[in-house]
């Protein structure tokens, strides 16, 4: 602590925030110094976003004090917080897609001449700011068409343009490529060197360990520790986050059963003239998890869509047991023994405005025990959803709460739990742990392994090599719509997979 000047850029004292029965923040203290990069970590649902929402005037705390630069403050809106020198880069960007970079940055505080927006001055000021902090942007470009990494720079520029002395970034790396992440870290370090206090929210330990001066850990709304990062370790932080050490699941040796899914020379059209999926053959047996690796956009999504029945293949066959799926509707495919965990959790997997119980019901609404004679039995439905919530330890205010109010990890557990409950012969899983915290990952992995050893066939599409290496019995690599390699569990390593994915080997 001695390397920091003793001036706190802001302090939170005893912050408590409740949503109904959920205590999102419970007497949280947090103090961040000028020039410091302070990590705020915790699993999904730990209360990180809520805490920063309190600081930024989005949520009114039920108890506690906020001090900015030594002065006690009360923020009724983000605008008050902005005026007090706070800046926030939200988890979901707050940008206007149809406006230019410069317009997005100056919005609300535009340089004007006779009431008209002075575009030249706006562009010049934004370019100067960008130059000064090494945030490369094209001021005249429309924001909607920019890569997320650049959009994030626009968000940072917005805060800097308003002269933020405190910059909060909510899970900024979740959307970035490794290269973009390096760039972001450089920018954050140079901002800190100029005296900006930075709060860096994440649940990825390696990046917190490399970037942050100090780190505060939240678990279920409470602070479990604040550490000087250099004197800490991944083990200590993960123990503080989860409350125990997380271990990789053990795989029992096992023999696969009969073939469940058989795909033969499948071709699926893409956007361009080249097919997205090009003459793919693969088979998945019972008690087997087959992984599909590949850089995003090499046909994995289209392959999954063709199996799920969301996309019509150009040619080829998809057999599930004795049923030929290509001519079947989605409902018929499910009846034939298919369950899916889709890639887009909120768009495809859930109806986020509907309740937890309703989401758990989807696909089961025809069951007589839940809907005798077609009339929904809400007591039975709630009971069943309650079982699912307990089983997967889903954190929610109740089964009647909207799915949208669950954190990402808990929403994912809900989807996985529902699909597993089908007891289908084949489970198609896409990106089951994207943006999900450690404990939820452990739980989902455990559930998939149990499912497989219980006789289910699993086709797992994932961008996380570690996940594939942990779970899959065989890993196929997709590149340009084709399967370009296959590695058995024993011979698969990250290096060999990486090489195949890049087109080498």
């Amino acid at each position: 602590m001695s390397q920091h000047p003793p001036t706190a850029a802001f302090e939170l004292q005893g912050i408590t925030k409740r949503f109904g029965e959920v205590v999102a923040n419970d007497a949280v203290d947090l103090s961040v110094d000028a020039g410091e990069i302070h990590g705020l970590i915790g699993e999904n649902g730990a209360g990180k976003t809520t805490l920063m929402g309190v600081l930024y005037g989005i949520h009114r705390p039920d108890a506690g004090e906020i001090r900015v630069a030594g002065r006690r403050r009360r923020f009724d809106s983000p605008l008050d917080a902005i005026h007090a020198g706070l800046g926030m880069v939200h988890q979901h960007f707050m940008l206007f897609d149809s406006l230019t970079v410069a317009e997005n940055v100056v919005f609300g505080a535009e340089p004007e001449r006779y009431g008209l927006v002075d575009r030249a001055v706006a562009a010049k000021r934004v370019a100067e700011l960008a130059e000064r902090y090494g945030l490369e942007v094209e001021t005249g470009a429309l924001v909607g068409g920019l890569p997320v990494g650049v959009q994030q720079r626009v968000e940072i520029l917005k805060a800097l343009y308003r002269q933020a002395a405190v910059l909060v970034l909510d899970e900024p790396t979740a959307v970035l490529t490794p290269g973009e992440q390096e760039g972001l870290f450089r920018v954050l370090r140079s901002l800190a060197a100029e005296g900006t206090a930075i709060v860096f929210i994440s649940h990825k330990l390696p990046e917190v360990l490399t970037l942050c001066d100090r780190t505060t850990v939240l678990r279920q709304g409470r602070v479990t520790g604040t550490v000087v990062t250099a004197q800490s370790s991944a083990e200590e932080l993960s123990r503080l986050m989860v409350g125990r050490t997380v271990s990789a699941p053990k795989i029992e040796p096992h023999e696969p059963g009969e073939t469940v899914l058989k795909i033969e020379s499948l071709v699926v059209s893409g956007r361009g003239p080249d097919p997205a999926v090009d003459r793919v053959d693969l088979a998945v047996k019972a008690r087997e998890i087959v992984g599909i690796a590949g850089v995003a956009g090499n046909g994995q999504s289209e392959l999954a869509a063709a199996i799920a029945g969301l996309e019509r293949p150009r040619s080829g066959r998809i057999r599930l047991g004795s049923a030929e799926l290509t001519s079947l509707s989605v409902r018929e495919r499910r009846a034939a023994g298919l369950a899916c965990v889709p890639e887009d959790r909120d768009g495809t997997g859930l109806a986020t405005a509907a309740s937890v119980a309703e989401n758990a019901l989807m696909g089961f609404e025809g069951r007589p025990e839940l809907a005798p004679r077609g009339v929904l039995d809400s007591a039975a439905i709630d009971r069943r959803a309650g079982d699912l919530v307990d089983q997967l330890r889903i954190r929610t205010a109740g089964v009647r709460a909207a799915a949208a109010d669950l954190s990402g990890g808990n929403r994912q557990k809900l989807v996985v739990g529902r699909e597993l409950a089908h007891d289908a012969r084949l489970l198609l899983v896409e990106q089951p742990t994207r943006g999900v915290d450690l404990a939820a990952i452990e739980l989902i992995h455990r559930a998939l392994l149990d499912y497989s050893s219980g006789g289910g066939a699993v086709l797992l599409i994932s961008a996380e090599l570690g996940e594939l290496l942990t779970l899959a019995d065989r890993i196929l690599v997709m590149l340009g719509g084709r399967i370009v390699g296959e590695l058995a569990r024993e011979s698969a390593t990250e290096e060999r997979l990486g090489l195949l994915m890049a087109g080498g080997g």
Partner: protein
Amino acid sequence: MELLGIFDATLTGSLLRFATPILLAALGGLICERAGVFNIGLEGLMLAGAFGAVVGSYFGGSALAGVAAAVLSGVALAALLALFAVRLRGNEIVVGIAINLLASGLTVYLLRSIFGVKGAFQDPALVGLSTLRLPGIDGLPLLGPLLSGHTSVVYVALLLTVGVQVLLFRHVIGLRLRGVGEHAEAAMTLGVDVGRLRTAAILVSGALCGLAGAQLSLGNVTLFVENMSAGRGWIAVVAVMFGRAHPLGVFAACLLFGLTESLGFRLQGLQLPSQLTESLPYVVTLASLFVFRSRTSRG
């Protein structure tokens, strides 16, 4: 020969006359749309304006008083719309429909209670809008009747089209308005008062619809007929969609609808049944909705 013959001075002369009410209402709808308010109360606002114009003209004794009363009527009714749709957060579709029904009923009621007549009101004391002859253009073939000899409201509408374009894409208020319409939450976090901008947008649309009404009851004719807006506000709603909430696109759409209306008017002169000719604008509206849909669903 016969077909080309209908594109004569009668047709070109009536084009802008018919297009103007739709254009003014559509400009109002466009501003609301950009602010994120789907204003389907244009029809009612326009009708209120048409009635207000007649009241103002009759009692004020001048066309200017009529126009002022028309604008006030539109703004007053729009204030009600803003109160319920923005301040009280009602559903804008429901509130918009209520506004249309209210305008329809209220004008019929006031027509009886103020003028003591049913159906229509016409009186020598009503002062209509005078027409302006543009020197230099007036004598030209085709261009003369197209551009010259219209009421001042027509020329104001043309200027306003340019004005709205500048406001939206150059002015600070326009930038904020577009931001509010695209991502209200983001605008709010940057300190822009979303409710105030939306209210202002609705009030402006009320003024524009009022002006549209004045052109209907004091420009195209000099009388008030029950429900004389006759669906033009709805057509304006379609014009906003069709022109993709862009002033120039909306202008083009309104010209198209104005053309069909004047075409219908012209065909009546050829002894075609009026039921057929008068349905032309609505048929074109339907057809264009279809085109609009199939274009967006593909894009």
